[in-house]
């Protein structure tokens, strides 16, 4: 489990996060949602240590991540996988080399063992046969899947995904969601997903936290979304008249 305790973050005079406290549970998909500029990416970067909070603490299990030295943090980071919004694949490496990079860097596995692990991860993200392709030769959806394969190759305990569906068509976005959910449940990982994709919220949201202007505006799960009377949540999730009609129809049916 990961805990954020009273996290505040300011850039110059602007306070982007205003005392966020929440728990991200193990074996569940924890979603951080909110409009652009709500502070989702900043919160995610604070949780993985790419930024330092102005105030507050981040806990990984019983370890206070915020007070750790750089070396101690590296040990924790060995247990962290992250999927970036733009996938962040290394252009000069093939799909296989990208996935193998953490193994080459941190393990003393033999070549054969590494190959086996890489093939296993590529199989899990349904990319068998794409080993020798370069990122530039693959589609956006494939790049996301390579990113997922690379982030799980060291069998992490924690998986962070920064807008995993951005720039993908609805069908591919759904596949990515399914993949993240399956990996989370099978590996018992603590997964934190930063998204503003409505489908993701309704499909894989075990725990959902809505950020609004740097504050925690609502917390719950996907089944509570429909019935919540939180105006900020309703405005965000059912932003268009079409979605509002869908919600009303769903509520009618449930009665």
């Amino acid at each position, binding site marked *: 489990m990961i805990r954020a305790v009273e996290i505040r973050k300011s850039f110059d005079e602007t306070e982007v996060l205003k005392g966020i406290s929440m728990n991200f549970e193990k074996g569940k998909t924890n979603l951080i949602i909110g409009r652009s500029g709500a502070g989702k990416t900043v919160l995610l970067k604070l949780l*993985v240590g*790419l930024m330092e909070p102005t105030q507050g603490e981040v806990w990984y299990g019983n370890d206070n991540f915020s007070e750790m030295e750089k070396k101690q943090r*590296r*040990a924790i*980071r*060995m247990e*962290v*996988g*992250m999927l*970036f*919004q*733009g996938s*962040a694949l*290394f*252009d000069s490496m093939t799909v296989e080399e990208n996935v193998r*990079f*953490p193994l*080459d*860097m*941190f393990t003393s596995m033999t070549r054969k063992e590494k190959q086996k692990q890489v093939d296993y991860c590529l199989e899990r993200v349904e990319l068998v046969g794409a080993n020798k392709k370069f990122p530039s030769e693959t589609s956006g959806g494939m790049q996301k899947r390579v990113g997922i394969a690379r982030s799980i190759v*060291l069998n992490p305990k924690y998986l*962070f995904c920064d807008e995993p569906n951005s720039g993908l068509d609805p069908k591919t976005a759904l596949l990515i969601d399914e993949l993240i959910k399956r990996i989370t449940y099978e590996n018992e990982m603590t997964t934190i997903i930063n998204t503003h994709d409505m489908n993701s919220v309704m499909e894989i949201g075990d725990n959902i936290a809505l950020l609004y202007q740097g504050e925690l505006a609502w917390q719950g799960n996907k089944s509570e979304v429909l019935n919540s009377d939180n105006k900020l949540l309703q405005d965000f999730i059912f932003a268009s008249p079409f979605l509002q009609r869908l919600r009303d129809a769903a509520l009618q049916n449930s009665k």
Partner: protein
Amino acid sequence: MLLRTAISRPEKFSMYWKETMRQMDDIGIGSIIIVSIIAIFIGAVTAVQFAYQLDGTLVPRWYIGYIVRDSTIIELAPTISCLVLAGKVGSNIAAEIGGMRQKEHIDAMEIMGVNTASYLILPKVIAGLVMIPILVCLAAFISILGGYLSSVVGGLITHEEYLRGLRSFFSDYNVLMMVIKSLVFAFILTSVSAYQGYYVKGGSIELGQASTRAVVYSDILILLADYVIALLLTQ
């Protein structure tokens, strides 16, 4: 600060070795042609211009070989080559690291637990320190050859006169000075460029600016270091 972080124990020696070899190929092999072209013209122009200056003086013409050799070894080969390399290699280093920063490659490595300052900068600095002195030695040799071509083949002096000049008043201390200069310049151009790339912020305009800054700052520091080394080593 960045250099202190960069100079630390590698996570995996074999990965650093592989990256250093790749950088040596990029910096060394990739710069041979440009350095050779510049060097041959430096030698040729020095020989022709010195021959012009000797016209009507009592200085023997075989001094052309001597002047080409010493001016090349002491000053022109290390300084001009490294100024050019600051443009080629320096801008490349800044753009490569800066591009990685912008595409979140550096963040991705950080999250994996990689010491990015070390993995991205140290191999480049080491490759520069190994390859640039070799390139400078090559430049000195080709420059002397350029002087030979322009003065002997060009009919200014004979083959024997040029060789006599080359063999006169030779001091191996000058070669040491050349190597020291090339090592210092190599360190300046690789570390300054890496710093500019590593801390780049913003988009493609800022990346271009960082790349330009890498070249300009490297050039200024190389010229400044050239002066300081000349003062220290010729006292």
